[in-house]
C-alpha cells in the first residue's frame, strides 16, 4: 500500500530540515502518533488509528535516518496492535527540494498491515493512508509556523490509563444497567475484586 503526497511549505528548506531530523517533532505530525522514548535516531512510541467505530493502537519502535546531502529522511517503524489485531510496518520518506524561499515536500508512505485490519477488502485502507498523509502535511506545516527557537515539544507523556471515577456512570435510577462494579478492561487486579464482590452479591438480597 503506497501513497504519495506533495505539498509546499512557506519556509526555507533549511528550517524544514531542522524539524524533519528531530523524531520528537516529525513523528508526532502523524495523527494518533505519540512517542514514549527517543534515543538518537531510534524511538519507541504508539500509534492510535481511529476509523469510524474501529479503534486500533499499535505499539512499536522505529528509526529515523537522515540523508542531508539528498535532503531526504526515511522513517521506518513497525509495531504490534495492543489487542492482538495484528502488526503494522511503515516506511515514510520525506524528500525536500528548495523552490526559492519555499520548500517542496514530497511524502511517500508505504504501509503494510497484517492481521484483521488488513482484511478490509474494500479499498478502505488506501483512503485511510491518503488522509493520514494529508494530516501529516498539515501538521508538519503547522509545526514549522511556530518559531524554530521553540524548544522541541517534550516527548508527549505516555497516555496514562484513564482513571475513571468509579461511579461516574452511576446515573441513578434511570440507568437500567446496575453499576455495581467498576468496568476495567483486562486489568487483572480490578477483575479480582469484581469476582469477590460478585460472590458477595450472589449471597446478598436481590435489589432492583
Amino acid at each position, binding site marked *: 500500500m503506497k501513497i504519495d503526497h506533495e505539498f509546499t511549505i512557506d519556509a526555507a528548506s533549511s528550517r524544514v530540515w531542522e524539524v524533519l531530523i528531530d523524531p520528537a517533532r516529525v513523528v508526532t505530525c502523524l495523527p494518533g502518533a505519540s512517542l514514549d522514548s527517543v534515543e538518537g535516531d531510534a524511538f519507541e512510541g504508539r500509534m492510535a488509528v481511529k476509523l469510524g467505530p474501529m479503534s486500533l493502537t499499535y505499539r512499536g519502535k522505529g528509526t529515523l535516518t537522515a540523508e542531508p546531502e539528498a535532503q531526504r529522511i526515511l522513517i521506518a517503524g513497525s509495531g504490534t496492535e495492543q489487542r492482538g489485531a495484528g502488526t503494522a510496518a511503515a516506511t515514510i520518506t520525506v524528500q525536500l527540494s528548495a523552490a526559492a524561499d519555499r520548500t517542496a515536500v514530497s511524502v511517500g508512505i508505504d504501509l503494510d498491515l497484517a492481521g484483521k485490519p488488513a482484511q478490509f477488502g474494500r479499498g478502505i485502507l488506501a483512503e485511510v493512508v491518503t488522509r493520514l498523509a494529508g494530516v501529516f502535511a498539515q501538521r508538519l506545516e503547522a509545526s514549522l509556523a511556530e518559531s524554530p527557537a521553540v524548544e522541541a515539544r517534550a516527548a508527549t507523556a505516555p497516555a496514562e490509563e484513564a482513571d475513571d471515577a468509579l461511579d461516574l456512570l452511576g446515573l441513578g435510577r434511570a440507568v437500567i*444497567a*446496575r453499576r455495581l462494579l467498576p468496568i476495567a478492561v483486562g486489568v487483572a487486579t480490578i477483575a479480582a475484586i469484581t469476582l469477590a464482590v460478585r460472590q458477595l452479591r450472589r449471597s446478598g438480597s436481590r435489589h432492583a
Partner: protein
Amino acid sequence: MSDPRNMSAAPQATAPPLSEPSAWHDISCVVNGHEVDAQVESRLLLSDFLRHRLALTGTHVGCEQGSCGACTVLIDRVPVRSCLMLAVQCDGRDVVTVEGLAAGDDLHPVQESFRAHHGLQCGFCTPGFLMTLAALADDAEPCDEERMLDEIGGHLCRCTGYLGIREAARCALGIAAGPDGCDHTGVRHE
C-alpha cells in the same frame, strides 16, 4: 392427559460465568410464549443467550456478522439477526424462535411446506428461513415472488441450491405455482 410440569415456572436461564467482567443486567422477556427472567452480562449476544442460557439451540450461528441469516428470530413479530443484538436489548420484548413455530403436533404451514418440497438437507440454515417466511406468512399484505426473494435474499444455504426452498416458500405464501405446481393454500397459522 395432565402435564406433570409446573407450567407457571418460567424456564430458568443459566447465569453468566462468574469471571465475566461486563456488568450484569436483569431482563425479563417473553420467549415462545413463556415469561423469562434472566441475568445477562452486557456483551452477551442474543444468539448465545437463546442457545446457551435457555437451551433453545434451534437458532443457529453461521457467521456472527449478519451475513448468513441462520440466526434469524422474531422480535415483536419482526425477523432480525440475533447475532447482531445484545440479550439485554430483549428486555420487555417478545421473542419467537423456531421452537415456537409448531403448535403441538402440527407443524407451521411453512415448516410443512419445507418438508413437502425438500426445502432442507443439513437443516442448519433452515430455522433462519422458517422465521423470515413465518413472519411473511403472517403479514397482512399479499406477497409476490419479488418480495419473497427480497425477504429470503439474505439467507445463505450451501446444500440445497435454493430450488426446494423457493418452491416451499411459494407454496406456503400462496405465490403463483412454481414449475411443479403446488397444492398448498397459504393457510395462516393462528
